[in-house]
């Protein structure tokens, strides 16, 4: 018995093992590799850059100022409006809804108050009382609000709904000179503003978690066509033409950065 074991522990057994192993390897070598290399996400070249969108137009109707139009969807990656039929997809990042389509929201399919309800989006929005350049840290995911149409009029103006991206000067006397043309003006708060009573209203920055988990910070500059500063905003200035600047960083980031 001992001899038997001794015999098989020598070279022939090693040779056998190699032959069998080689055979098995050879027979398996044609198997299909079903796991393709991950492809780079489309649109990744938009990260870490300052982008500007000017005069993004949505329909408005001054004859029915209290009737909201359908939500308008926008992609921060393509800088284009997205068809409303794509509402439950992850191809858009922010929605403009509510009166004058002036209330912002993110793309979140899990929230029944989001226009994307049912879709795969996991986004949201929040607003900070900070200047755009000062917003460097990305807030925690639990701070984002998943509902649509939640960031709009600021409490510092008329019909305020919390901290908003614009101040609505209903009578034209909060920031305007009280004339009729300065009434009903929406002042974007991308930069600080000082009211006629001397109150300084800090700038606001909107932060967006996109449906795929990236982050963007947005400076809302104007909702008037070709008019980017408060001195040229009047009741009859063509609106709603959104102008804003933003930076996107990829999912997992903790800081907003602009890289050369």
């Amino acid at each position, binding site marked *: 018995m001992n001899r038997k074991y001794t*015999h098989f522990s020598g070279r*022939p057994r090693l*040779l*056998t093992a190699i*032959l*069998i192993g080689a*055979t*098995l390897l*050879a*027979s398996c*070598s*044609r198997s*299909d*590799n*079903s*796991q*393709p*290399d991950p492809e780079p996400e489309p649109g990744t070249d938009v990260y870490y850059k300052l982008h500007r969108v000017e005069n993004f137009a949505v329909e408005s109707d001054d*004859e*029915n100022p209290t*009737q*909201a*139009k*359908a939500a308008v969807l926008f992609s921060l990656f393509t800088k284009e409006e997205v068809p*409303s*039929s*794509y*509402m*439950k*997809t*992850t*191809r858009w990042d922010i929605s403009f809804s509510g009166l004058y389509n002036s209330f912002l929201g993110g793309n979140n*399919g*899990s929230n029944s108050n989001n226009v994307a*309800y*049912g*879709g*795969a*989006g996991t986004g949201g929005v929040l607003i900070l009382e900070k200047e755009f350049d000062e917003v460097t840290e990305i807030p925690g995911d639990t701070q984002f609000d998943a509902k649509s149409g939640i960031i709009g009029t600021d409490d510092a103006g008329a019909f305020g709904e919390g901290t908003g991206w614009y101040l609505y000067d209903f009578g034209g006397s909060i920031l305007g000179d009280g004339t009729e043309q300065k009434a009903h003006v929406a002042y974007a708060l991308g930069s600080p503003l000082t009211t006629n009573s001397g109150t300084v209203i800090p700038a606001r920055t909107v932060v967006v978690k996109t449906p795929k988990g990236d982050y963007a910070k947005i400076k809302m500059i104007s909702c008037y066509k070709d008019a980017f500063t408060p001195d040229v905003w009047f009741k009859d200035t063509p609106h709603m033409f959104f102008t804003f600047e933003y930076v996107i960083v990829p999912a997992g980031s903790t800081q907003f950065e602009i890289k050369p």
Partner: protein
Amino acid sequence: MQSLKYVFLLVFSGLFLAVGCTRTEDLPPLSQSRMLSFKVPTADGDIIGAIDESDQTITVYVPFYHQFAVIDPEITLSEGARLEEESLPVDVLAEDVRYTVIGNDGSKTTYRLIIHLQQITPFTLLEPSTEALIAKWEIGYGSVSIQANFNTTDPSIISVYLVDDAGAEHPLRPNTALGSVGVAPVIIGDGQKTYSFGNLRIPQELTPGLYHLKVDMLNLSTTSTYPVELVWGKPNGFIYNPVTVKAGETFTLETGSISLHDVREVSFLVNGEKLPLEIVEWDHLKVTARVPADLAPGTYIPSIVCGDFEPSSPGWWGITIAE
């Protein structure tokens, strides 16, 4: 004995080699232009499409409760392969969608997409009319509600039509002047739950007569058994448009709801007296009248009479006659 074992080992190894080589040689090379997976991400996880290589089809079942108008699939392919055309969101009713995969070796495989939209049937409309009582709707009325088991709150996937005797379909459009158009669940008389799709406008250009109601929702469609009757009504809302004109000039009133018909009279009330104006022209949407050349400056509220109805008026805004 020892040499026998060597022989046995060699035969055994040869057998393994033969088996291994046979399997390698006999299998045809796998296509490099294969679609490996097709999935539709949703809030509740992925809907997986079944890829059948025998007939190059992708079959995907979309449950009704997702309320998807489109699906936006995520597709993975063989290593190095690409799609001939960009994958875009696909209408859930589309029947002619194909994906051509181009392999790393230049080979091509085309897959046909089959979408099974799982909707609850039968699709039942609550009829406005009965055999005994035909509902009368005024032409141009802008707040019609349709009740059916839509099982959705998404108005964008529902279409409502009035079908005339000739079979022509006239869509009822959402009346956005009354706010956002929505679909909401309602409990009807017998305690059953259904859905109401409201604020639809009856097209102002239609003419009186009997029409059937047809409702489409994705791949479901239903038509009322009994028709509704469209009738003329009294105009009850004008589009706010306070204009300033001079004596002798014309102005136009435009209805915002019930259609105009048989416009017999346009007038101002001046010092308590009705002042008839010349009717220049009218159609079902608007009427143009001329202000008398000798009318004193001021603001006058206009009034019109259609058919045998009582006069209609904007009520609180008027036409200003300038100096």
